């Protein structure tokens, strides 16, 4: 019945096109930096209004409205304002920012310069994850190219406005994707997230100055909002879920990859079957994590019912769920970072959770006890379930540990590490119990866990 949904490429428009290269000449030949030239002739306050009108929501994971983030910036303090581009892309299942950085770095730089002008930032940093050494080099070269053409640095495009961009490399810590942890890291400290209040970045951010922290994809979108105007941009997608979204699909599909769509223009089923070619032959869909590994898992053979934010009743199968921020939340998960991880019927859910728990135990910054201890215990319990020494009460114990983390930590990592365990145990309780019973009865460790990874 439904035709294959068409991609709408705004951010990815030039990426992977024949002959498109990442150097500034190619970018300029494709209309690059024209938006910036226009932007610097406008009133910054009006530009910020455009972002509000556009309804642009953050593409990093939380989906917070960008316009509001900028509105909160403390402009009365007289302190310099900073813009930080969060390029710490490390939510498992997410690989979109890498494409932009490697293949179209000038789009990001133009988006950043448009943003710094709109918020009148004194200086900007790109915090790029340590595992992107090539990406960092590419960005540095691109900034240098842009500086030579007067798009970055002193007196941008002949105006009185000046702003530098510096690239700052992280060093392998997932928590640096959390904006206040990122700020601590940029100040040369351990990336311990700060408590809010009082440390809202918009007021007390980098060096205790007002700071906007935005994701790579969000900043690229800023350029397009300024190009088409906030009102036009808001016509793309759905109300409250405007613009396009880059979805990263991985796991058990024939054509994994990154795809850009109008937000809410397609369902999870269309994404998996029509866009990604379905599952490997002979396999059936078992579960999907729709927004990066911390998003709650969705089970394939379940009905999702309830009321949407607008009050409309819905009754969806997993395949029916529209891919937008609000629908995924209504279905009990989240759009998060856009990382869709697909699992087929060969997947052992205990192993999958064991893998995720090992990640969070490794990445907890260790500042808050419930998260530091809880993430470690969740990993220990799933590991012993896999290695053959489970206890029958482990299933409930797992959930109990998870339930004591969320809401009791400084940052959202607490939720991020608890949600997988809570949702896996809730949705696949039968499988967890069966695993525990089988191993207790047979008194034999399972064969080497296939996907759990190292202890």
């Amino acid at each position, binding site marked *: 019945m439904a035709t294959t949904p068409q991609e709408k490429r705004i951010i990815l428009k030039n990426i992977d096109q024949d002959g498109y290269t990442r150097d500034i000449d190619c970018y300029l030949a494709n209309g690059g930096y024209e938006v910036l030239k226009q932007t610097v002739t406008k009133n910054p306050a009006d530009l910020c209004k455009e972002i509000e009108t556009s309804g642009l929501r953050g593409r990093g994971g939380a989906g917070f409205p960008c316009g509001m983030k900028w509105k909160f910036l403390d402009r009365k303090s007289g302190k310099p304002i900073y813009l930080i581009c969060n390029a710490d892309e*490390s939510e498992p299942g997410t690989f979109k920012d890498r494409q932009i950085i490697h293949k179209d770095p000038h789009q990001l730089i133009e988006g950043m310069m448009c943003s710094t002008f709109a918020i009148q930032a004194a200086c900007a940093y790109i915090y790029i994850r340590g595992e992107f050494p090539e990406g960092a080099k590419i960005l540095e070269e691109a900034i240098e190219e842009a500086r030579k053409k007067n798009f970055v640095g002193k007196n941008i495009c002949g105006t009185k406005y000046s702003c530098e961009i510096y690239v700052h490399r992280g060093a392998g810590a997932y928590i640096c994707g959390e904006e206040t942890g990122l700020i601590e890291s940029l100040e040369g400290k351990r990336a311990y997230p700060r408590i809010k209040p009082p440390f809202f970045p918009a007021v007390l951010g980098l060096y205790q100055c007002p700071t906007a922290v935005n994701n790579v994809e969000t900043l690229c979108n800023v350029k397009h909002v300024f190009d088409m105007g906030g009102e036009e941009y808001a016509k793309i997608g759905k109300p409250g879920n405007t613009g396009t979204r880059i979805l990263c699909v991985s796991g*058990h599909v024939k054509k994994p990859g990154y795809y850009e769509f109008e937000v809410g223009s397609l369902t999870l089923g269309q994404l998996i079957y029509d866009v990604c070619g379905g599952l490997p032959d002979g396999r059936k869909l078992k579960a999907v994590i729709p927004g990066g590994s911390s998003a709650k898992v969705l089970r394939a053979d379940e009905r999702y019912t309830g009321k949407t934010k607008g009050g409309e009743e819905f009754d969806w199968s997993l395949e029916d769920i529209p891919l937008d921020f609000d629908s995924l939340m209504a279905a009990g998960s989240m759009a998060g970072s856009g990382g869709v991880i697909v699992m087929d019927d060969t997947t052992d859910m205990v192993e999958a959770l064991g893998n995720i728990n090992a990640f969070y135990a490794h990445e907890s*910054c260790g500042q808050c006890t419930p998260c530091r201890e809880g993430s470690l215990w969740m990993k220990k319990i799933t590991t012993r379930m896999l290695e053959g020494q489970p206890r029958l009460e482990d299933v409930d114990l797992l959930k109990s540990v998870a339930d004591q983390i969320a809401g009791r930590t400084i940052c959202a990592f607490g939720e991020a590490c608890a949600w997988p365990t809570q949702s896996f145990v809730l949705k696949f309780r039968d499988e967890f119990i069966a695993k525990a019973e089988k191993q207790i009865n047979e008194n034999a460790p399972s064969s080497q866990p296939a996907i759990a990874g190292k202890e």
Partner: protein
Amino acid sequence: MSDTQTETEEFSLSSETLAKIDEVITHYPEKRSATLPLLHLVQEEKGYISRPAMEWIADKLGLTPINVYELVTFYPMFREKPVGRRHVRVCRTLSCALVGSHKTCKVLQDKLGCELDGVSEDGEFSIEYAECLAGCGTGPVLMVDDDFYENIDEAKAAELAERLKTEKKD
């Protein structure tokens, strides 16, 4: 770390690295922000971060050595011991695991002759698991030093290992 005081004087860096260090410090209104960049630059030259290196960085930035040491122990990419001349990091996290990264890792361990988290006898290779490298659509992914490799199944892992061993001879 006081017993390494004398080593501090012996710690030295190439003039190229020193120039990069002086340049990068200018990026920040507060010197302390340059700690991570300095650690990267030192590790690039030396292969790891020694205690004298930490003291040198602290001194350079007007910090105490603990300010540097606490970063080395916090950020997984910094290491206090040398690794192999070629360092392999295989993604362990879910998307790559679903498509068999553990098998990739096993092949590389066997072919390169080193245990996980270990160094081969000749000091050429070392392997570790890394958490999500943001290449989930083309898993299994891995890095050899700064180079990124995608779609490395068992067969390609064997080829890659052979190539790395040949490069060793050159």
